[in-house]
């Protein structure tokens, strides 16, 4: 059971002008369950890293103090367990049981006690497989359960969860939430601090909510009901997913969809996507949502429609309306890349996979340049997109240093830069805060109304309700 104390705490990463987090005063008593909220960029992850003792003293500048049970967290590592966002990069071993044992070995737990503790931790999180299950064969939600078991096996007095469900689909997120709930049920020995965008997911787990403000300091602190009654509207405006705040719905009958741009004719790709039963048209002025469980091949369909992979069954055919030159020509995956970006804009699930330039402005200029636009026209396009997607202050920043919401906005902007008639997006709202979410929905709605075709692969039921004209369930 551990007690956490922060007094005027702040941290500035070496080489940065701005403080990642500052002026935080917070006491968390042993056994308390705290949800830590704040707009994106408020420094929540940095704060958790500091509490876990994972910020080396020489990696930045500290203000104020942070203590766990009165100790510097760097000397109290064995009292704190942490689970991060990305399941792939926190599992160490090839077999599930070995991974849970890893921390116990590091702490020098005698060998004969390790396996009983591993089994107990696996049971505690509801892990459904044996110790020998390869970690690579687990779904994202199951991997996060395993990471949780690895943290709990060390019996931490303080458990930190840093957006443990942000990289997961809704089913995976439920797995993790149930695991946390089950593991902490009836256990008043573990103090919990959780950072989570999806407040509704986290609320059953906590009895206190602390809100950081973007400029530093703690804005609000109290019981969940009181906090959301008093600050709900403001928090929602800041981007926090406050429960029961209304979202836009696709209102009224849609304008009749335009001409087909692309036709997916019984298309399939062995072994990732079973051939579709019908011909699926993608039309101008229409938003098509592609739904279905994990592993059904949604992303593969997006790649096929986006002209990035070749089909093994059926075909993807572009119409003259999309090619714009009156000819139908070869299938999209055979187009040269500069041709492709003029016709189809692809937005990947992870924005970072798409970045190739060293500044935001260059990233936006790349597509138009590849299409042979003159520099003056390129500059016009870049300026307009910087304004439209609120990236103007970041024009000179490195794309890899952007926050999640900024990176998403940039990846959509790069796809728009060449003014393609069709946009194909893979989980565009994944892990986004409420503010970015609303902006994206508004932008995609505008594009659709302006006659663009939109295809979006998604698990997000709110996005479907707000945007989709037609659904395709795999």
């Amino acid at each position, binding site marked *: 059971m551990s007690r956490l104390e922060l007094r005027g705490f702040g941290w500035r990463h070496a080489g940065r002008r701005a403080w990642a987090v500052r002026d935080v005063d917070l006491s968390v008593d042993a056994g308390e369950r705290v949800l830590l909220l704040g707009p994106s960029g408020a420094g929540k992850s940095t704060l958790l*890293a500091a509490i*876990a003792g*994972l910020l080396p003293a020489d990696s930045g500048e500290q203000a104020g103090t942070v203590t766990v049970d009165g100790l510097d967290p760097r000397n109290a*590592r064995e009292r*704190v*367990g*942490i689970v*991060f966002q*990305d399941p*792939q*990069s*926190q*599992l*160490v*071993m*090839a*077999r599930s049981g*070995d991974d849970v*044992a*890893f*921390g*116990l*070995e*590091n*702490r*020098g*737990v*005698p*060998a004969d006690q*390790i*396996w009983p503790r591993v089994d107990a931790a696996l049971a505690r999180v509801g892990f459904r497989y044996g110790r020998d299950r*390869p*970690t*690579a*064969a687990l779904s994202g939600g199951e991997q996060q359960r395993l*990471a949780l078991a*690895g*943290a709990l096996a*060390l019996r931490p007095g303080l458990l930190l969860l840093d957006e443990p469900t942000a990289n997961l689909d809704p089913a995976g997120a439920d797995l993790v939430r149930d695991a946390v709930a089950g593991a902490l049920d009836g256990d008043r020995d573990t103090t919990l601090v959780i950072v989570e965008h999806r407040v509704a997911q986290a609320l059953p787990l906590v009895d206190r909510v602390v809100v950081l403000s973007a400029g530093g300091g703690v804005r609000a602190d109290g019981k969940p009901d009181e906090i959301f009654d008093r600050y709900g509207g403001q928090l929602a405006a800041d981007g926090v997913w406050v429960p029961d705040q209304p979202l836009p719905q696709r209102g009224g009958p849609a304008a009749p969809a335009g001409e087909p741009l692309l036709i997916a004719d019984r298309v399939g790709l062995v072994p990732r996507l079973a051939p579709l039963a019908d011909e699926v048209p993608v039309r101008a002025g229409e938003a098509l949502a592609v739904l279905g469980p994990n592993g059904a091949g949604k992303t593969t369909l997006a790649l096929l429609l*986006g002209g*990035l992979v070749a089909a093994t069954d059926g075909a993807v055919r572009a119409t003259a309306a999309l090619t714009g030159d009156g000819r139908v020509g070869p299938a999209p995956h055979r187009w*040269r*890349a*500069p041709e*492709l*970006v003029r016709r189809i804009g*692809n937005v*990947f699930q992870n924005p*970072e*996979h*798409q970045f*190739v330039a060293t500044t935001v402005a260059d990233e936006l200029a*790349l*597509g138009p340049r*590849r*299409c042979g636009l003159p520099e003056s026209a390129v500059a016009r396009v870049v300026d307009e997109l910087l304004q439209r997607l609120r990236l103007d202050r970041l024009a000179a920043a490195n794309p*890899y240093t952007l926050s999640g919401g900024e990176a998403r906005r940039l990846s959509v902007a*790069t*796809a728009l830069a*060449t003014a393609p008639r069709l946009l194909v997006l893979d989980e565009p709202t994944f892990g986004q805060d409420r503010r970015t979410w609303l902006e994206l929905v508004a932008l995609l709605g505008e594009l659709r109304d302006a006659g663009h075709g939109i295809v979006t692969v998604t698990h997000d039921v709110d996005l479907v309700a707000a945007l989709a004209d037609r659904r395709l369930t795999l």
Partner: protein
Amino acid sequence: MSRSAAAPVIGGALARRNPVAKLAAALVFSVLLLATLDPVAPAVALAVELAVVPLFGLGYRALLRRMAPLLLSAAGVLVTLTLFAAERTGPVLLAAGPVLVTSGVLVTALGLALRLLAVALPGVLVFATTDPTDLADALVQNVKAPPRFAIGALAAFRLVPMLAAEWQLLAMARRARGIDAGRNPVRRFRLFAATAFGLLVLAIRRGTRLATAMDARGFDAGVPRTSARRQRFGAADAALVVGAAVAAGGSLAVSFAAGVFRPVIG
């Protein structure tokens, strides 16, 4: 992501030996073989190696699949040396236009190709039948390798299969951004280099995150580490290493007795 075709096959008396013993046996065997340039010693050694393959629980067909790249390079060595070697001694076996094959050339080429196979096969056998986790455990427990190195390398090794998938994704992302090389070889190379750099950046970011997660679970915290999985180095393991030395020595002895022994040094 499922484990690839390179996943270890466990089974067979020798496959179950201590990973460090297997590694040491393969090293001893291969290094001793390097002592001679003649084709007889590697031929005998290769025969011995092929005879023990079933003891590693590996089928010959599976072995052939794993050896494919090696066989290809051995064939390459054979053809290139036979046709282009400078030293053309011994009776002429074939003279067809510019192609002149003499017995001396053929023996040298055959010797090199056999050496390549005989030296590499033990390594292939060991890695095909050794679980990486077991190898890291044995390195730490039996030869006192620093866990920081052995376990760290093991964790990094686990990220490798993800790189292949990520490479594909990066290549597609570049195309989606309007970048392709067409048939221009220079642009192709530059695109390849740029994609490789992108992959490196991703790998470093992921590696950093993994290192932090390992830190958070007390890795390398200065506390003496315990081991959940015991690796024992017993008499049978020592016997494997000695056996490998004896077998390699025997191959050399055969070549010596046949009077074809050609030491590398001297």
